[in-house]
């Protein structure tokens, strides 16, 4: 199949070998699980359980609220010991509402099923909406790291005609091998998940895109898809950021998603291999999303591994299972080294979008001071979105957001290719993240000003309404008094 090229991109050293050779292992169940109520994009889930309550494995802990949201289930059986604040796996080190579960080590499922109608059935005999609803109820979100609720994305198929489902097996981030191992070891389950998604979307074909540095995964997915004519494996070149949605669509279909539009607008939907595997488990086995495959790697980890981890496990438990640190880590990341989030410490939980825990050694990080820009234009050549980081960064530095927007700040995907190639070590992508934050603040301030104006108007209306009501009541009282007096005058004998 013909493969197209997206512009720009970089070739970081892959560092995948240490963990790519390791089969997925189950992490022993930790004593405590810290399950955040927000592991997805959208509104946080609302707790359904109380402190002290015993729960079964897979029991609903918190239900989704609002249009874009996802429920959270108990990753194991045990007792709820706390519903409160816990450090989020986020560079800010701020808290997130979290349910703490003390496990009993029995992993009991019980009769209490996670979803009333979740008995495993043939999805191809079910209505599309029903399958999508089950995927939503299983708490499945984008497992590649974006954590957008999968059912909401599948519902886009109803509004627009989707012709192609692309399965993202790119895994272009260095160090990460969890999708690679998943495709090697669980190819049949993944293919089944893809067929279920095709049924829900009513799409014509599914293209499984895998980078050419994963020959074993390509072979195993090819073998698994053999009996299904509408599934194809597309081998794409290894180039970062291949795994980014828009770049992947361009590589596989040759179509560029227009700025400010979504992939569904051109009839394409992209899902991660981890997501389709979770869909297979939810629909065929009736299992909600309780665990995920996580790569533990980096030069500071003694034994890099791929682990099947219950959601809510602390990062320190994973590191301990991998033999701990071989040297003090210079940087601890959740996700890959290009776009991953720096963790404040290792006592943060694994969430639905955590594809890797990477502890980098001092030799692996680059911390040279930033030098003046020499206008070499390498960032322009590397930008996969066709932007000009060299022009955008100084504008953001000087607080000129409007002109940075004119240069296309809104289309930046924060992939970090520009910072990676910059010979002057200018923190380009950091400027863009800062700029996007400022834009978000500005939108929020505008929203607040508008809300204040509306509230003030409402208050004026209310005061007017009340004044009118008071005046009317006073007039009425006056009139009543007048009639009373008149009556008294007309019939004085009554009072005698």
């Amino acid at each position, binding site marked *: 199949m013909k493969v197209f090229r997206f512009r720009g991109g970089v070739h970081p050293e892959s560092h995948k070998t240490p963990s790519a050779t390791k089969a997925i292992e189950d992490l022993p169940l930790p004593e405590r699980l810290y399950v955040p109520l927000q592991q997805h994009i959208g509104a946080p889930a609302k707790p359904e359980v109380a402190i002290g309550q015993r729960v079964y494995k897979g029991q609903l802990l918190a239900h989704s609220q609002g249009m874009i949201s996802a429920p959270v289930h108990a990753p194991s059986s045990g007792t709820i010991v706390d519903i409160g604040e816990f450090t989020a796996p986020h560079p800010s080190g701020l808290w997130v509402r979290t349910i703490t579960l003390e496990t009993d080590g029995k992993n009991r499922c019980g009769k209490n099923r996670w979803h009333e109608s979740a008995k495993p059935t043939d999805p191809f005999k079910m209505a599309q909406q029903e399958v999508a609803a089950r995927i939503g109820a299983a708490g499945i979100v984008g497992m590649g790291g974006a954590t957008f609720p999968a059912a909401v994305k599948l519902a886009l198929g109803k509004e627009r005609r989707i012709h192609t489902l692309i399965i993202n097996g790119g895994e272009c981030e260095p160090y990460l091998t969890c999708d690679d191992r998943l495709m090697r070891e669980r190819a049949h389950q993944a293919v089944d998940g893809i067929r279920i998604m095709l049924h829900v979307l009513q799409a014509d074909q599914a293209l499984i895109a895998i980078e050419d540095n994963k020959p074993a995964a390509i072979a195993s997915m090819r073998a698994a898809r053999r009996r299904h004519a509408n599934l194809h494996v597309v081998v794409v070149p290894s180039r970062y950021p291949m795994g980014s949605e828009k770049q992947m669509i361009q590589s596989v279909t040759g179509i560029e998603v227009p700025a400010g539009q979504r992939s569904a607008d051109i009839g394409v939907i992209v899902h991660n291999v981890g997501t389709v595997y979770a869909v297979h488990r939810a629909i065929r086995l009736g299992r909600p999303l309780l665990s995920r495959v996580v790569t533990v790697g980096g030069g500071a980890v003694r034994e890099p591994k791929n682990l099947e981890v219950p959601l809510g496990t602390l990062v320190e438990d994973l590191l301990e299972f991998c033999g701990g640190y071989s040297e003090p880590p210079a940087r601890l990341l959740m996700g890959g080294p290009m776009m991953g989030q720096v963790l404040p410490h290792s006592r943060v939980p694994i969430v639905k979008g955590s594809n890797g825990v990477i502890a980098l050694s001092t030799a692996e990080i680059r911390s040279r001071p930033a030098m003046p820009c020499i206008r070499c234009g390498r960032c322009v050549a590397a930008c996969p979105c066709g932007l000009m980081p060299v022009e955008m960064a100084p504008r953001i530095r000087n607080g000129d957001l409007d002109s940075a927007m004119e240069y296309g700040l809104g289309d930046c995907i924060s992939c970090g290719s520009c910072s990676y190639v910059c010979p002057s070590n200018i923190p380009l992508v950091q400027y863009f993240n800062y700029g996007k934050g400022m834009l978000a603040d500005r939108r929020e*301030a505008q929203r607040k000003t508008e809300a*204040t104006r509306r509230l003030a108007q409402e208050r004026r209306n209310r005061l007017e309404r009340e004044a009118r009501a008071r005046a009317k009541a006073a007039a009425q009282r006056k009139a009543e008094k007048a009639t009373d007096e008149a009556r008294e005058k007309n019939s004085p004998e009554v009072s005698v």
Partner: protein
Amino acid sequence: MITAIASLATLGLVLGLLLGLAARYLKVETDPVVAEIEALLPGSQCGQCGQAGCGQAAAALAAGELPVTFCPPGGRSLAETLASLLGLEVDLSGVEDTQPMLARVKEATCIGCTRCFKVCPTDAIIGAPKQIHAVLQDACTGCGNCVEICPTECLQMFPIEVTLGTWRWPKPRLAA
């Protein structure tokens, strides 16, 4: 040559007359800029700028008596909009230093006197007589009217708490 001078002079006179008449008969009563500024302001008449209300503040800004950064609830975003409307260059680096504050009720000392929600410009305080009141953080503009009127000092201003949703990446530091 005389014809050219004469025709241009006549043209000038006629147009001048027209302009003079237009200035007299099509005169705009109020400054349209004031109305434009007022439309941008929150309109909660909170008085944080020191003026009696948003209308007076707009007039003062148009007259050049107030800087564009006068409105605390509008913040940086409003200051930028106003500056671009008036074609002014402003240094906004100092604007965000005055951290926006919101009112909050300390439940232990609230006596439920209902005075605070009568002065709230956005109806952001809820409660009933002899019941503990509460401030809706999303609707509060931080004007401080309630803090002044509270007899038990249970209403106080607090800086807005940063959450995961409102946290932003800091500006990269420049190495010398």
